[in-house]
């Protein structure tokens, strides 16, 4: 990398996080700390039925006996779980009859983020269940969806209105005993989204939730559950930005997907949590458990993620390919800059016959960041003719960053076909000069090269999200390389 490029990198790296602002809304929070009493208060504040409280308490008691995992290739100061407030709700609870009744400051926040609900409603036909801090404040398109029998609501509402579905499916993919962060989430999850697509229904629009962390020191424990009944289809979008903070904020979400016979779920994420400043101070700790179960025959689950934010990312969206002929896909772009650390990848568990999985992972490391791909392909004893293709590419920008690949294979059936390809490359000065010589600036040239590198993943995103992802990548690159 030449000296002018390094200068550009440094200059651009000093730009502030674009979405670093804090909305002043009175938050009704629980005191810091975690114990059974706090969980009871949390459950009662949310008017939850008894079964939910019992489940939370079981999860909490299990969590108490667990150890925080330390196998990931990330480093951070120990988290004091008693220093976190586990609930925060906007005090002015708006009536949901129309958007006009929503707190204007809240709407303003959405405007700043460029996710005006009005605009979304009018232009893109995207139904948005907006999660502001921990409580849903606006849900759109509900009527249209309910005509088709589709349920799309906050997790809190689902617990109250559809307890039979919650009892049946919540924790059925990620049990409360699953891992340290998933158990914590099960005990204290505040809210999230729930979607149920009935038999044979093709959801006519992309379902979408925007998350936003707001109150200081409030951990976010989102819980999302999507159930696609037989022969149904749904595409779900998740995107997020967070305000600037000095303290590290813990985010431990759980996402569960269930696809029954012939059902298909496409789950797309653009993640842009606050990554910390250029010295590595602050930023979100993103410890997420995402897992989908292809429970039925011929079912399919696709994860597509574009990860640019967070100080630390610990995330492995996975597929359990239980039904015969089921398909799991994972497409990922993970970009790290400054002092960011990412340990991300997927698990593809082949259980049924003729199951197939595809993994395309593109890591981009810049600044002093560390980017690891960690993936497991497991083929069970009875998974005849399982097939997997994995491709893990790493792109390095500058010479102070790191890229690592940890592929794990566990093959217990000799008919399996498993392919793994991995490459590591640096952005070539020759490529930059070639584009310079055609009249394109170095900043645009790098953006172009990186977007070209990620093309295979971007084409899996829904149109409007792909555009957003490209913009986001360019914004993130501004802070790293120009």
């Amino acid at each position, binding site marked *: 990398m030449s000296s002018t490029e390094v200068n550009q990198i440094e200059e651009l790296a000093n730009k502030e996080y674009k979405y670093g602002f804090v909305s002043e809304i009175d938050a009704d929070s629980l005191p810091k700390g975690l114990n059974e009493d706090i969980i009871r208060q949390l459950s009662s504040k949310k008017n939850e039925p008894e079964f939910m409280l019992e489940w939370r308490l079981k999860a909490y008691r299990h969590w108490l006996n667990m150890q925080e995992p330390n196998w990931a290739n990330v480093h951070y100061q120990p988290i004091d779980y008693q220093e976190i407030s586990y609930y925060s709700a906007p005090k002015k609870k708006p009536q949901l009859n129309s958007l006009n009744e929503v707190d204007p400051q809240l709407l303003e926040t959405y405007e700043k983020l460029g996710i005006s609900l009005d605009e979304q409603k009018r232009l893109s036909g995207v139904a948005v269940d907006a999660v502001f801090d921990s409580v849903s404040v606006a849900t759109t398109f509900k009527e249209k969806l309910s005509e088709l029998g589709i349920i799309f609501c906050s997790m809190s509402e689902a617990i109250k209105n559809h307890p039979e579905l919650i009892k049946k499916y919540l924790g059925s993919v990620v049990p409360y005993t699953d891992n340290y962060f998933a158990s914590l989430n099960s005990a204290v999850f505040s809210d999230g989204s729930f979607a149920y697509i009935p038999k044979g229904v093709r959801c006519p629009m992309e379902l979408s939730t925007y998350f936003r962390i707001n109150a200081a020191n409030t951990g976010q424990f989102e819980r999302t559950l999507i159930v696609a009944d037989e022969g149904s289809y749904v595409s779900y979008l998740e995107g997020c930005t967070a305000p600037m903070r000095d303290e590290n904020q813990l985010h431990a979400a759980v996402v569960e997907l269930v696809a029954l016979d012939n059902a298909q779920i496409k789950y797309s994420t653009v993640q842009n949590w606050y990554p910390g400043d250029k010295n590595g101070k602050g930023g979100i700790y993103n410890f997420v458990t995402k897992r989908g179960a292809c429970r039925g025959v011929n079912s399919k689950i696709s994860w597509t993620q574009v990860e640019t934010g967070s100080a630390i990312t610990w995330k492995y969206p996975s597929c359990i390919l239980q039904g015969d002929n089921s398909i799991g896909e994972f497409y990922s772009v993970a970009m790290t800059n400054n002092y960011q650390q990412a340990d991300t990848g997927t698990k593809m568990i082949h259980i049924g016959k003729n199951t197939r999985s595809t993994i395309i992972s593109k890591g981009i490391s810049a600044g002093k960041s560390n980017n690891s791909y960690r993936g497991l392909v497991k083929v069970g004893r009875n998974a005849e003719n399982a097939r997997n293709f994995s491709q893990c590419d790493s792109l390095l920008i500058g010479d102070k960053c790191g890229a690592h690949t940890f592929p794990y294979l566990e093959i217990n059936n000799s008919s399996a076909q498993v392919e793994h390809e991995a490459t590591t490359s640096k952005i070539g000065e020759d490529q930059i*000069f070639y*584009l310079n*010589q055609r*009249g*394109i600036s170095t900043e645009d040239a790098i953006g172009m*090269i990186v977007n070209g590198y990620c093309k295979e993943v971007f084409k899996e995103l829904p149109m409007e999200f792909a555009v957003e992802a490209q913009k986001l990548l360019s914004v993130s690159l501004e802070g790293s390389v120009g």
Partner: protein
Amino acid sequence: MLEIKNLHANIGNKEILKGINLKVNAGEVHAIMGPNGGGKSTLASVLAGKEGYVVTKGEVIYNGKNLLELSPEDRAREGIFLAFQYPVEIPGVSNTNLLKTALNEIKKYRGEEELDAMEFLTLIKQRMKIVELDQTLLSRSVNEGFSGGEKKRNEIFQMAVLEPKLAILDETDSGLDIDALRIVANGVNKLKSKERATIVITHYQRLLDYIVPDVVHVLYNGKIVKSGGKELALELEEKGYDWIKDPKELIEH
């Protein structure tokens, strides 16, 4: 259009160009010949502004501007085009995307109106014919998996779209079979105009059978040691470069 005065340039601590003087007017075609290692490609790189080449002495005036003060992209926007000897591959970036971005950057710089998608498509369809470019190459990633001939043809195609004022062809004939050579040379000839100057860098005379130069220069050991008409190229072909290297011969001329 272009005036190079006493240009000295280093790579690292090694002096490669040792006092180049060259004047190129609009409408002219200049051929720069010479043995390998003489500094031909270095001259092209210095003119295009590639990193790692340090100008230690001399100046380059291009259309009244101090060329050496401009960034590589501004040189391109001012109308300098380098057809690379080894065009790089850029995976995932389509040829069309590159050209549209490049063309509109150049137009923006010049205060001209940018082309919309339809206008651009019409333009490239027309320019593709100049080098008989296969349409499938448009949507493919820049130079990725292109044959040697396709890469060179693609360079001339880009030149046809970007319409430079000064085109520098760096060993465009290397690695081409005779058919590809003819197509590429025809393309360059079709793009010849009164407003455009072309510098053809080549090791062999063969390209100059197709692209007829107005002036031929011999670059040897960092200096232009001989200049003449197109017949100089033939003489070089016949005698090789050794007679140029003989100091006695140099004195005679």
